[in-house]
């Protein structure tokens, strides 16, 4: 298990850079993870990230791309534009929830 300096603290992360203890998550950490992914967080990014956190808290599963687009006002096109090169994975990483396990 590796550690990374995120939000000014030393945080435990897995080999894909996902934080391993969900309680560690903070907005500052999210901003640092986003920066490392080359993403500058806007209000629209937060809509997705906040939804992922809410849904994960309720279901204990990271929402899939389709679930995100069905339950927020962010559509597929916008989601891919907000998180280029892998929207589900990158948004989950920033939201401090595990990588989405679904195939769709």
């Amino acid at each position, binding site marked *: 298990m590796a550690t990374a300096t995120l939000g000014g603290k030393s945080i435990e992360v897995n080999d894909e850079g996902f934080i391993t203890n969900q309680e560690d998550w903070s907005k500052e950490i999210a901003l640092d993870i986003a920066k490392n992914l080359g993403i500058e967080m806007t209000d629209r990014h937060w809509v997705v990230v906040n939804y992922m956190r809410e849904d994960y808290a309720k279901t204990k599963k990271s929402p899939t*791309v389709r679930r995100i687009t069905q339950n927020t006002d962010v559509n*597929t096109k916008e989601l891919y534009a907000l998180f280029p090169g892998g929207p589900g994975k990158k948004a989950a990483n920033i939201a401090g929830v595990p990588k989405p396990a679904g195939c769709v």
Partner: protein
Amino acid sequence: MDEKIKKVSIIVSKGSLEGIYPGLIMANGARMEGIEANLFFTFFGLDAIKTKTIDNIKVATVGNPGMHIPTLIGALPGMSALATHMMKKTMAELDIPPIHEFIEMCHDAGCMLYACKASVEMFKLEKNDFIEAVDSIITVGDFYEMAGGGEIIFT
């Protein structure tokens, strides 16, 4: 870790529900991983992008050993509709979208959609027989060109 896949071009050649879904799941899955993806519809695969047929795709209950029902029973009226209904229900529970929505979703995710020119001519079809999301009708030569440097998957 081995070298990452950067591009996949997936050929959909069948027009049954079970013939179409795997290609869509793989194309959408590629986009979710940041992999460039193309879908190429040929022969009966064209049913997946034709306005007339896209909302009416059924499971094949005859000549489909995976169904585990005798061919004669599979041929009874309503069997295909019943199997389709059951499979759609299970898929909805798993959050897998219906074919029409799934194809639009792949397109919105940046996957290119192509119809095979030879098949389009064989079935006497035109561009306006297809849903709007279809990018263009291309030849097999065009297909190989755009598939260049990537993996080709035939379904």
